[in-house]
């Protein structure tokens, strides 16, 4: 282990429990406690997964899910950051938005899904709307808290140098709050993955969530696990990719997190 560079060693150690889980899974499947119709062996599932990843039809579904996910996340990020910055920059905006957020934050947004269906239809729009509803809150909160916590002397230094209040807010305070904002975005990204999948399960038309429900209806247990594992892997991948992006964006910042 000592010969390997630190990040690789860390990932190997991290992979250990996952390997253990898969091992446990394999052991249970082999022992016959659970019949293969209930718990297919990991080998079967992964073979099927690889097979599906080569199939155009499956990839179509994956693409559909991803498009909804990214669309929802992008809208949520734009809205969340804008509102968060507005809350810090304008006391009036803060006074209006803060109580609204306080009321809406603990409401399970999934309960709004039927309303979205009724107003936006069964297809993409309602699913994207649900993603936005769930993802916007972590981003909004992170941005508003992060910008409010920026050391006022940074803003003062910029204003003394000649920056207007608005310019200062957007080009100094917001970048200074970037660590916080990006953390909120990362949380929102994972939430987006989860929510889009669930929406696709509830109104099953297409996408990965739909595939799980379709397999469940025809009792195809292997085909149930495949989309589930796919979305989880996607979530992990996006999380890792986002972390890498975050490190690059925060090059100059001292390591606070």
């Amino acid at each position: 282990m000592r010969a390997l560079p630190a990040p690789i060693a860390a990932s190997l150690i991290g992979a250990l429990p996952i390997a253990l889980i898969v091992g446990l899974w394999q052991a249970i499947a082999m022992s016959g406690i659970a019949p293969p119709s209930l718990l297919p062996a990991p080998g079967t599932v992964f073979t099927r997964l690889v097979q599906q990843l080569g199939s155009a039809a499956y990839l179509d579904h994956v693409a559909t899910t991803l498009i909804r996910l990214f669309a929802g996340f992008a809208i949520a990020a734009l809205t969340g950051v804008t509102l968060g910055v507005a809350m810090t920059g304008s006391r009036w905006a803060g006074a209006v938005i803060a109580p609204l957020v306080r009321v809406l934050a603990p409401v399970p947004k999934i309960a709004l899904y039927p309303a979205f269906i009724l107003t936006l239809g069964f297809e993409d729009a309602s699913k994207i709307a649900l993603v936005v509803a769930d993802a916007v809150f972590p981003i909004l909160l992170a941005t508003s808290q992060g910008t409010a916590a920026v050391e006022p002397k940074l803003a003062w230094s910029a204003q003394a140098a000649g920056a207007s209040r608005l310019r200062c807010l957007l080009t100094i305070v917001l970048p200074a709050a970037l660590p916080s904002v990006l953390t909120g975005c990362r949380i929102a990204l994972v939430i987006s993955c989860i929510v889009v999948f669930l929406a696709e399960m509830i109104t099953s038309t297409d996408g990965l969530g739909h595939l799980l429900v379709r397999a469940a209806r025809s009792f195809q247990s292997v085909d149930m696990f495949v989309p589930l594992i796919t979305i989880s892997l996607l979530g992990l991948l996006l999380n890792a990719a986002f972390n890498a992006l975050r490190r690059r964006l925060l090059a100059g910042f001292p390591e606070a997190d």
Partner: protein
Amino acid sequence: MIRPGPTLAPLAACAALLVAWEIGARLAGIDGLPPASHALAQIPAILGDPESLLHIGASLRRMVVGFALGVAAAVPIGLTMGRSRHVAAFFNPLLMVIYPVPKAALMPVIMLWLGVGDASKTLVIFLGVTLPVIYHSYQGSRAVEQKMLWSAAAMGMTAPARLVRIVLPAALPEILAGCRVGLVLALITMVTSEMIARQTGLGNILFNSLDMAQYDTVYAMIVIIGALGFVLDAAFEWLRGRLVAWAEPSHPIMVGTT
């Protein structure tokens, strides 16, 4: 910044939302968006109907059981993780893998194993609750000052006793923060699992009325669920404030989902 301000502002916000809904619905004039007044009028009908109450009661029961079991399992694990590097190293990657998995999405899989009854829904809620509670208990436990524990050890306390009598109270603010998130997730997971696997419960009433085009009832249920979420969260925050009045105020929680 969001502060726990006077109750006037949230009430005003609620009122503003309802008014905006009413006006927007009347202007839009589509069947799919009944005005707020129509929806609210349905609420007494729902709450007065014994069958609905049975459904709602069943939902709440599952949620409470799932939450209680989740907390009971998660707190010891989190506390131990905080004090033992090995336990932490073991569980951490596992939790990171489980984090992006939509717990409610496990419903069909779990239903395969446990059938369509209460057990599968409660299990899913249990899974949803454990993650944030473990995480927060872990963080809270980690932050407990080593010197406090050394003093306790010097006084003759054994390791398990230290865990219960020093680490637990000291980590309590953070644990309760995790429980708050867990409670919100319990509600969300409960509703979602009932939407996916409909037999009984709030989610079931919701989608039944959707299927039967009883739009007023749909929106009335949304309001009921929303109010439930808000009330539960507010009640828990009040309880938390009483229990850990001695702690410094924590940051408002970034509410997650599923």
